[in-house]
C-alpha cells in the first residue's frame, strides 16, 4: 500500500500540488485521472522521488520514503517498477538486455538465470520472440509491453504507469490495460496508473482519484465515477458524447 499525506509542491509562484492525500491499495489498479496540467505527473514524480515535495509524506507499506536516506530509498526504489509514457527503453540495448538491465544491476543472478528471468517476463507480455530486436524496431504497443516486462523483472511491489496508452490504437490500448490489470492481481502489486484516457479507466480501474488544480477533489470507483456528483469531475468525465451516452444508458 502507498499512502500520500498532505503533499505540497510549488514551482516558483505556481502551486502545483495542494495538500494531496491519497491511499493506493495493494493488489488493485489505482487510477489517478485529471486534465492535462492538473498535477497528476508531479504527484507521481513526488511519489517515486523524482521530485522532492515541499511538504508532506509518502509511505510505502509504512516506510516514510521522504525522510529516508539515499541508501534506504534505494531499497524501496528496487521494489518499484515504472512504465513511462514514452516507454523509456534504453535504445542502445536490445529488448532482452533492457529487461535484463535491472537484474544485472541489482541481483546476483548468473547470466543464464538472468536470461531465463528476462525470457519469462517477455513471455508474460507475449513478446518471447522479440528479445533480439532494438526498441527502435518495435511498434509503440510492443515498446509498452517491453516496458512492462522490464518493470516486472525485479518482482516489484509497486508499479507506476504514466499514460500507458498514449499513442496506442484502441485495441492495443485494451491489451495493455488488461496486462496491467492481470499483472497487478497476479503478483499482488500496488499499481498506480496516471491517465486521462476514459476507456482505460472504465476497462482497468479498481479505484480512481480525480486530480483538479493540484488537489484530489474526488475518489471512488467506476460506478461512482458514472454517477458523478462533483462538477469538475463531471466536466472531465462526460466531456465526450460517448461518455454522455454511456451515462444515459447506465
Amino acid at each position: 500500500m502507498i499512502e500520500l499525506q498532505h503533499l505540497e509542491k510549488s514551482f516558483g509562484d505556481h502551486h502545483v500540488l495542494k495538500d494531496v492525500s491519497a491511499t493506493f491499495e495493494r493488489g488493485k489498479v489505482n487510477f489517478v485521472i485529471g486534465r492535462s496540467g492538473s498535477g497528476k505527473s508531479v504527484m507521481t514524480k513526488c511519489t517515486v522521488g523524482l521530485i522532492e515535495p515541499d511538504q508532506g509524506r509518502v509511505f510505502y507499506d509504512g516506510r516514510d520514503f521522504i525522510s529516508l536516506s539515499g541508501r534506504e530509498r534505494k531499497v524501496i526504489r528496487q521494489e518499484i517498477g515504472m512504465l513511462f509514457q514514452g516507454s523509456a527503453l534504453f535504445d542502445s540495448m536490445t529488448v532482452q538486455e533492457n529487461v535484463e538491465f535491472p537484474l544485472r544491476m541489482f541481483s546476483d543472478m548468473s547470466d543464464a538465470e538472468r536470461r531465463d528471468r528476462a525470457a519469462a517476463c517477455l513471455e508474460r507480455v507475449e513478446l518471447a520472440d522479440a528479445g533480439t530486436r532494438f526498441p527502435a524496431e518495435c511498434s509503440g504497443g510492443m515498446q509498452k509491453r517491453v516496458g512492462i516486462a522490464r518493470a516486472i523483472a525485479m518482482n516489484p511491489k509497486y508499479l507506476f504507469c504514466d499514460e500507458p496508452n498514449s499513442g496506442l490504437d484502441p485495441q492495443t490500448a485494451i491489451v495493455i490495460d488488461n496486462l496491467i490489470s492481470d499483472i497487478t492481481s497476479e503478483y499482488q502489486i500496488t499499481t498506480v496508473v496516471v491517465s486521462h484516457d476514459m476507456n482505460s479507466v472504465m476497462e482497468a480501474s479498481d479505484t480512481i482519484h480525480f486530480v483538479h488544480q493540484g488537489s484530489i477533489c474526488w475518489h471512488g470507483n467506476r460506478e461512482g465515477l458514472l454517477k458523478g456528483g462533483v462538477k469538475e469531475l463531471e466536466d472531465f468525465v462526460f466531456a465526450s458524447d460517448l461518455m454522455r451516452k454511456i451515462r444515459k444508458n447506465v
Partner: protein
Amino acid sequence: MRWMYHIGRYMRLLAKSFRKPEKLSVFKDLLVTELESIGLQSVGIVALLSIFMGAVICLQTAHQIGGWIPVYTIGFTVRQTMILEFSPTLIPVILAGKVGSNIASQIGTMRVTEQIDALDIMGVNSAGYLILPKVVAGVFIVPFLVVLSMVLGVGAGAWIGVATGLSPLADFEYGMQVDFRVFDVVYALTKTVVFGFILTSVSAYHGYFAEGGALEVGKSSTKAVVWSVVIIMVSNLILTQMLLN
C-alpha cells in the same frame, strides 16, 4: 550570477557521478565501451590533423628562417610546437567537438526520453552510470591520443622537410634533440589529463540537464562544445602559468 548557479550544479553533478559504482563488472564494461568510443574512434581524425599540422609547421618554419638561422631550427620548432601547444591543447579542442557533442547529445536524448528517470527510479545512480565511465575514459585515453599526435606530427614534419629538400634528416633529427626537456612532455600530459576531464564532464553536464525535445538537445550539444572549448582555453592559460613558472 547565473554562472555561479551552473558551477554549483556542475560540482554537485560531479559529486554524484564520483560515487562508488553499483556494480563493478557493469562499470568495467561501460569503461571499455567508452575507451573505444572516445579513444579508438578518434584515432583517425587525430592522426590526420596531426600529420598535416606537423607538415605545415615544418613548411612555415622553413619559410621563416633566413640564411643565418640554422636549418636544425625547423626540427626544433616542429617538436616544440607539437609537444607544447598543438597536441596537448588543439587535440582536446578537436575532441571537444567530436566527442563532447556526442556525449551531450547521447545523455541529452536519454534525459528528454525519460531514460535517465527510468535509471533513477530503478535505484541506479544515473550520473554515476552515465558520466563516470566517460570521464575516466577521457582522462585515461586523451593523453594517449596526444602522444600519438606528437609522434605523428613530428614524424610528418621530418618527412615533409626531407621530401621537399628544406631540411636534411640529420639536421631535423638534431633539431628534435636540441635542448629537449622531459618536463615539456610532463607539462603537456598534465594539461591533457585536465583537458580530458573538462571535455567529458562539461559535455556530460550539458547533456544531463537538457530539457525539452530534439531542439534543446541540439542546443545543449552546441553549448557543450562551446563551453568545453572556452574552459579548456582558460585552463590552458592558468595551467601554463602555474606549470612553467
